[in-house]
């Protein structure tokens, strides 16, 4: 479908140009910077809603396509489009674009213009990542996104912010340069940079394996998977609340999206061969990192580890498809896994974003993230306690909340692949409940920890607005996930058909190695 007006371009460039304007306002005009940022992000959100309403749910083809030559000498295009995988993630991005502006309203006092500008630019770049259909364009957005986050963590972060932000930057940079080499290889093989063209490109077994590992290097760091996750707790702990929210809610999803857009369709045979690797790493993340989360003293760190463990569900859901195909002829189970992974990504976006905001609320008041400094917060902050308990419940996968839907779908699907996968992931429900509820017990309930805690002010209207919106989203996806799942049905079905077809050259034909 060709769109009449370039919605996706507007979604990318409106926040970026808006961000540049906000930065140009200068240090003195803090309140103007806030208002302008809010307006820009609200406008972006409003525009993105048209993506949802005008989306054609019956097709897996790319929609809202925009295609212009960019670097003609190498057939690189400014090629945008969305399908059922990317559209929900773009909505998630624009939704959080507004929330972080509101959440940082009076919390950030120094260099407001640069703070707001960083987030707006980041929002535009992330929409770009989700909508780019040209390999180099994708890489440009994928990498450029690191710059505003690098500045956000480094300028407004905690005491060890410099270490954390440089680690974050170099880690993700190192992962993605391997992907760049892979992308160039694909171009040299196919003579095109278009990702849909790459999906159809036949590739030899060895080439696929190397490409798969290249993509894995980039996306496993981003999502992140055990054992390349160590940047995440550092970055989360040191980042300001807004940075943690965007990092957890959206940036991690880019790793999952990358697997869907690149690894699975471009190298299906290598994915099938190496699915044991991903599944093993996912299970380690789900179980081992769950235990690690249990012993954390720092609330942000606990949520960070919980994120890694929840992302394990996403990679598991995506890669058990091959096991299910081998076991049975029933493709329904594989679809359940992939859709579960997608729902889990969206849900985790809401839940982890909300949890970081909750910790942010406490941190703004007491300037501590340590669990031991709190206790009995419910006594002085009853409304806050209500929201926090809701979100921690969602984090542990309580039915009725969004956290349940995705995890349940993935566990159900993994039964069809292997009983033990399901058993181990099921274990995570117990672990998740343990670390979430134990935290709630120690922070929210129990005796009042100290006099400072007793004097805490309950959430103000601005914080209530943010948390209510998120609570509504969490409950909506939990109780009525149908609209979300509907938009991705066609794309998931197409992906599953695609990955079952081998891309290896037919035997007897000239074998194409690397």
């Amino acid at each position, binding site marked *: 479908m060709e769109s009449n007006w370039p919605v996706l371009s507007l979604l990318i460039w409106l926040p970026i140009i808006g961000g540049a304007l906000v930065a140009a306002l200068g240090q003195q005009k803090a309140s103007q910077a806030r208002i302008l940022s809010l307006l820009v992000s609200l406008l972006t959100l409003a525009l993105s809603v048209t993506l949802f309403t005008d989306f054609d749910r019956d097709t897996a083809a790319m929609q809202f396509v925009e295609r212009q030559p960019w*670097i003609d*000498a190498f057939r690189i295009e400014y090629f945008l489009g969305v399908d059922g995988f990317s559209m929900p993630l773009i909505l998630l991005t624009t939704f959080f674009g507004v929330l972080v502006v509101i959440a940082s309203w009076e919390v950030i006092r120094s260099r407001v213009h640069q703070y707001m500008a960083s987030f707006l630019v980041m929002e535009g770049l992330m929409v770009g990542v989700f909508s780019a259909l040209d390999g*180099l364009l994708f890489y440009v957005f994928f990498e450029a996104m690191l710059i505003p986050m690098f500045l956000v963590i*480094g300028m407004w972060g905690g005491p060890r912010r*410099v270490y954390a932000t*440089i680690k974050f930057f*170099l880690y993700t940079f190192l992962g993605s*340069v*391997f992907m760049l*080499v892979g992308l160039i290889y694909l171009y040299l093989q196919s003579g095109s940079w278009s990702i849909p063209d790459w999906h159809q490109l036949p590739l030899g077994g060895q080439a696929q394996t190397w490409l798969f590992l290249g993509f894995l290097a980039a996306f496993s760091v981003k999502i992140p998977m055990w054992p390349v996750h160590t940047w995440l707790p550092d970055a989360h702990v040191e980042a300001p609340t807004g940075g943690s929210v965007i990092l957890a809610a959206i940036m991690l999803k880019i790793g999952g999206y990358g697997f869907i857009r690149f690894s699975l369709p471009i190298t299906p045979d290598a994915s099938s061969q190496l699915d044991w690797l991903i599944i093993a790493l996912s299970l380690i993340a789900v179980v081992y990192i769950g235990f690690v989360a249990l012993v954390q003293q720092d609330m942000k760190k606990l949520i960070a580890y919980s994120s890694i463990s929840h992302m394990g569900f996403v990679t598991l859901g995506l890669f058990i498809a091959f096991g299910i195909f081998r076991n049975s002829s029933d493709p329904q189970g594989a679809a359940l896994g992939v859709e579960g992974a997608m729902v889990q990504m969206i849900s985790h976006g809401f839940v982890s974003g909300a949890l970081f905001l909750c910790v942010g609320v406490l941190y703004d008041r007491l300037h501590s993230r340590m669990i031991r400094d709190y206790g009995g917060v419910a006594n002085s902050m009853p409304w806050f306690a209500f929201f926090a308990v809701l979100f921690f419940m969602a984090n542990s996968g309580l039915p009725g909340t969004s956290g349940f839907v995705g995890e349940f779908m993935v566990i159900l699907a993994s039964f069809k692949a292997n009983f033990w996968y399901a058993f181990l992931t099921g274990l995570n429900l117990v672990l998740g409940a343990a670390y979430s509820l134990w935290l709630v017990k120690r922070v929210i309930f129990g005796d009042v920890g100290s006099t400072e805690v007793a004097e805490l002010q309950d959430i103000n209207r601005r914080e209530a607005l943010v948390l209510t919106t998120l609570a509504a989203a969490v409950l909506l996806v939990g109780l009525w996930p149908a609209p979300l799942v509907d938009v991705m049905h066609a794309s998931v079905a197409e992906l599953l058909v695609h990955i079952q077809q081998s891309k290896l050259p037919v035997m007897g034909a000239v074998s194409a190695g690397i």
Partner: protein
Amino acid sequence: MNMSKILLAAPEIWVFLMACIILIVDLFLREERRGIIHLLGMLTLIFAAIITLRADYAEAGLRSASAFGGSFLRDPMGDVLKLFSYLILAFVFIYAKFYLRQFRMFRADFYTLSLFALLGIMLLISANSLIMIYLGLELTSLSSYALVAYDRDSRRGSEAAMKYFVLGSMASGMLLYGMSMIYGATGSLDLNLIGAAVSSAGRDDVMLVFGLVFLVVGLAFKLGAVPFHMWIPDVYHGAPAGITLLIAALPKMAAFAMTFRLLQTGMGSLQEDWGQMLAVLALLSIVLGNVAAIAQSNIKRMLAYSTISHMGFMLLGFLPGTNAGFGAAMYYVIVYSLMTAAAFGMVILLSSRGVEAEELDDFKGLNQRSNWYAAIMAMVMFSMAGVPVFVGFFAKWLVIQAALEAGLVWLALLAVVFSVIGAFYYLRVVKLMYFDDPKTETDINAPVDFRAVLSLNGILMLGLGIFSGSLIAVCMASFGA
């Protein structure tokens, strides 16, 4: 020879005349009216650009044209490189004027020497015979030696000039030795004839291969590729920042052209041999440049090692021996020159009251002193590190693509890994500017032309990145790729 052939060299003749005129005009100028010299210098560049753009051979539908018995060649590659040389030198003039005034070194010699260096660079870019190459090279080098010693009371400057002179002469000697062997083997000075002779002689001619080795050594010296890089950090450090700017940004484009003409036009059929030599040089430069830069606390030395690694990356473009590869290397060298000019422009901007801002710590807290200049420096640093969407990324991408095209997957992988290691020291500058508190609160003052040009130079980092298609197309078209 008829007149129209001589006119092919019109830009060179114009620059030569103007350099002489400036030399004479200065004799009749009083100290306070020396601004006129600057205007004359800018005028020279503007008219040189106009003359270069009105290329008769292109209007006649020819791909290239030669004069002076084939030793002078006008082609699209040369024209593009010359135009960028004018642009960079214009940047240099404006940056250096501010610097030289501050340090009481604002004399006409700078403009004369720079224009003679430019003339040498232009000859080198257009040279198509061994003699012309040597002529251009020596003109450039001698002007540069004198420029390094421009602050004659500075011991560090004199030492650097001496070092530069001795090592540079040695490199010229090597090159000359190689050239004489090649002349002996082929019996010709014209690169096209040499090319033909070499392809018929084949790879078994020992004298030819020996000559090639000496050529490559000489070229590596001029480019500053490891292990012939020793002069770069000392010269960059020792020369005044306004001069370092010129030496760092300008001659690399000529070095690229010289490498292309000698190796591809002259020795194209020995591509397999020199490709291997360049691969080793490229790898060593990328590794050593990036690792050594981490240890520097002086920004001029850091940029010197960064230059070494950039030259390594640029050499990757030569490896496949295809037109697309040469186009990539040319794009890299142009982008490198623009980035380097902006980086030294920032160093000059922060120098104040006769003290050079040459320590990395001088960049501390720049964001709090000025959002805009911190943003420019950040863009330059991210661009040098090869982070998209800045133009440096596109240059790195193209040369890595060239290395992969040549089938050197391991080299491409090593190059990208070391570019990540290199990213660390560029990030450190960003860290100093944005995450630390300033050492001084002094205002940043600069004349309006300086600020405008530096801003333009910084915006080019972003603009050429977002609209990268056009410059890439120009570079590729220069080689017909």
